[in-house]
Every structure is written in C-alpha cells, then in structure tokens.
C-alpha cells in the first residue's frame, strides 16, 4: 500500500471545536479523510471475511459433531467473544515481530497485520454465535435431513445456507466489533500517517491532541459507515426473505 502524507490539522473545519466544524469536514470531501475511511473499510471488511471463513465452518463443525473436550471448546469460544483488543494486538504483535514465529512474513506495521489482528479478535465471536445458530437449527432439521439421507458435508452446507439470515446478523456483529476496535490495530499497525492510520486510531490521536472537531467528524463518519453497512445488509436480507423464504 502506497504511503501518503496527510496532516489532519490542515483539513477544512479542523481548527474549529464545534459540531459544525465536524460537519464541514465531512462535506468537504477531503481526499485524506476518505483515504482513512477507505483504509478502515478495507481492513475491517477483509478481517470480517477472513474471520468468517474460519469462524463459520468452525462454529458449524462444533455444533454438529461430538468429541471429547467439546464443552471446554464451547466455553473457550464463548469466553473469547470478550477478548480485550489490546491483548489480541499484543499477541499478534509478538507473533509478527521480527523475532516472532511469523516475523519472516514482514507484515508488522502494515494493513495486513491490522487485518490479522481484527480477524483474530472477531473470529471467536463469529464461531461462537454460528455454533449456537447452527445447533438450534440442527435441532429443528435433524430428523428431516436424516430421513432424506443428507450426508455430513451436505448437512453443514444446508444448515449454513438456511441460517444465512442469522449469519448475516452475526457477520454484522463481527464487522461492528472490528470497525470500532482501536487497541489491536494501534499496536500492530503503528498508526502510521498515510499508511496504517484508520478512523479509530485517528480519532484517538486527534482527541489526545485536542482536535475535537476532527475526532467528532471521524466519529460521525465511523457511525455512519457502520449504520450504512447494517442498512444495506438489512435491505438485502429483507429482499432475500421475500423472494426465497
């Protein structure tokens, strides 16, 4: 990713400490602001996709199989929903640091590292909630699918597909958690201006510097983005439910 210099203090409305300054900043269409918003979306959406690719099959597998230690795994998954972001950031930092086992990848202080950290943070949320949804659905479908001779892998696919509306809500929960997260991406991304600076880290930085209009403006954008993504997902869900049940 190409590094771009930007100084938020020079953005329109940045010097003002009231809400109008924040709105001015948003409506100005400043390229730097949108670069930060774009990077935030890229990192969070990538992390959500990555976490869902791991979390959903894992959750479905735990829901549909019985093995020694399953209850312990469920407790761990449920407990991991509340992982502190800074701890996740620290662990990922240690893994990706030059002396860590994944150091040779050389992705520390890059958006890729931020994606990994956010994915680690939300994968347990997606896995735990998926397990609960699939387990409940399996209780409803078990006899019907068994009577139809549906094989094990097809069962997983069928349940994931039929739970798709609930799973979208789970993805949104993961997306929201990742989008609002600041500690982990700060540690593994380094909050490098024009390179790994995202909305949450910029808000934290500008607040500490006293640029409250900037912080408020970015906060409004962040909330707006999360609401827009949720609204889009809700609209798609409604359309799908009307057309496919």
């Amino acid at each position, binding site marked *: 990713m190409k590094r771009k210099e930007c100084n938020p203090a020079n953005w329109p409305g940045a010097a003002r400490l009231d809400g109008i300054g924040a709105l001015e900043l948003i409506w100005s269409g400043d390229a730097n602001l949108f670069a930060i918003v774009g990077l935030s979306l890229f990192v969070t959406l990538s992390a959500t996709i990555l976490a869902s690719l791991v979390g959903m099959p894992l959750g479905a597998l735990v829901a549909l199989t019985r093995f020694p230690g399953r209850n312990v795994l469920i407790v761990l998954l449920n407990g991991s929903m509340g992982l502190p972001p800074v701890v996740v950031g620290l662990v990922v930092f240690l893994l990706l640091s030059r002396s860590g086992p994944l150091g040779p990848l050389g992705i520390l202080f890059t958006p890729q590292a931020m994606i990994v950290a956010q994915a680690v943070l939300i994968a347990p949320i997606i896995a735990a909630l998926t397990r609960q949804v699939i387990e409940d659905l399996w209780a*409803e479908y078990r006899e019907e699918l068994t009577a139809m001779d549906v094989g094990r892998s097809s069962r997983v696919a069928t349940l994931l597909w039929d739970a798709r509306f609930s799973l979208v809500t789970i993805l949104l929960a993961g997306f929201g958690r990742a989008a609002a997260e600041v500690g982990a991406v700060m540690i593994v991304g380094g909050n490098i201006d024009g390179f790994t600076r995202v909305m949450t880290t910029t808000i934290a930085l500008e607040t500490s510097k006293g640029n409250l209009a900037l912080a408020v403006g970015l906060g409004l954008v962040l909330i707006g983005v999360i609401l827009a993504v949720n609204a889009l997902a809700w609209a798609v869900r409604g359309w799908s439910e009307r057309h*496919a*049940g």
Partner: protein
Amino acid sequence: MRDSPVRDRPTTLPIRFENVAFTAGVAQVLRDVTLSISAGLPTILLGPNGSGKTSLLKLAIGLLTPIAGRILYAGRENVSSSRHAFVFQKPVMLRRTVARNVAFALKAAGRAPEAAAIARLLSAVGLAPLAERPARRLSGGEQQRLALARALARDPEVLFLDEPTASLDPFATKSVEDIITRTAEGGVKIVMATHDLGQARRLAGDIVFLANGALVEHAPAATFFDTPATSEAKRFLAGELVI
C-alpha cells in the same frame, strides 16, 4: 417417477418387527411389538395420542433404535433406507423456494435435479403454480403437499407418513389424501399413522391398532372396523377414551 433406475434396488418388504421395544428416558414407548408390514394396500397405524405410532414409524425408517428386538427388511437387518421416505406431521420447510426444496430432495436421493423432474413432482402434488414461492410462506396444506413431493423425489418403495393431515382443514386434508391414494395406486407402499377414524376408513388396507405402546390388533380394515377383536379397539371405535 416410474421410470427411475432406482426402482432396480432390492425390495425392503416385508418389514418385520420382532419383539421390538423402545423407551424414551424412563418412559416405555413401545413394548414387545411383533408385526409384519407387507406390500399392497396402505397400512394404517391407528391409536390414540401417545400410543407409540410415531415411534413405530421412526423405528421403521431408522430414526430411532430399538432397545430390544429387531427389525428386518425383506429378511435382512440394517439395510439402506434409500427406498424409504418419510413425511413428518410438521415437516421442516427449507429456506428456499418450493422448486428448490424439491431439487434438494432429488439431489439428496442421488437423482439429477432436472427441471422436468421437479415440474413433474410439483404437478403430482398440485404445486406447479407455486414453484417459485418461498416454501415457508405456503399454507399448512401446501407445506404438507410439498413435503409429499420431496418424499416422492426419493422414488420410494415405502412411504411413511406421520399424521400428515393432523392440523389441516377438510379441503387440505382431501387434497393430501388424494395424493396418498394416487401414490398407493402407483405401487408405493403407504404406512401412515393417524388417530382419525374417518381417514383410516377411507385409506386403509389393513389396520395396526396400538394402545399404550402395545400392538393390540392387526387386521384387514374391513375386519377391524366391522368386528374388532379386542375390547380396546371396540372402545376406540365407539369413541371412548382409551387411556
């Protein structure tokens, strides 16, 4: 559906229960049931609620395992259930359209989900005009007919039905019964549980009467209704409570 190669699979009839018992927790659901279900006219499992009808059906298709006794299919144990289909009292509608529900059943049965096959099955149950409707938006009767189409997608030798009209109005009940009758006329063995005496009279070739988890009587329908051999059957036919 008569031209399917799956018809070449070996028969599973007669289905013979030998001293079968089943418990659910501490409750004895079925005890010492010995029964033979042969090819031919529909076999109706009749009895009050809790008499063990549903458990008997689920044991027959392998959804439950007996705690004692054994079940033989054409003299063999543990045969593949690919020649059997089951329609539940409250069938689960998969979250997809009516046509895709049938396509799913065809695929699960190892058959190609071709448009012609789907259309034929939906026509057989009178749901062709609703092919693209979400299955969960169908009425109760329509859902039951879709469940029948999914069951028929397996091209079964034996079709087990667990009180398929229990919650339907008379019109929907008649449409389901018509499908069952046509299916039976097509050579599929029907084994159906009901507590509806009128329905049993309309459909039955033979009656298996259960009460309190025990097989009380098994007789041709005419014999059972005209000259029931047991006091329980007489009381049930008279509309008395058999507890």
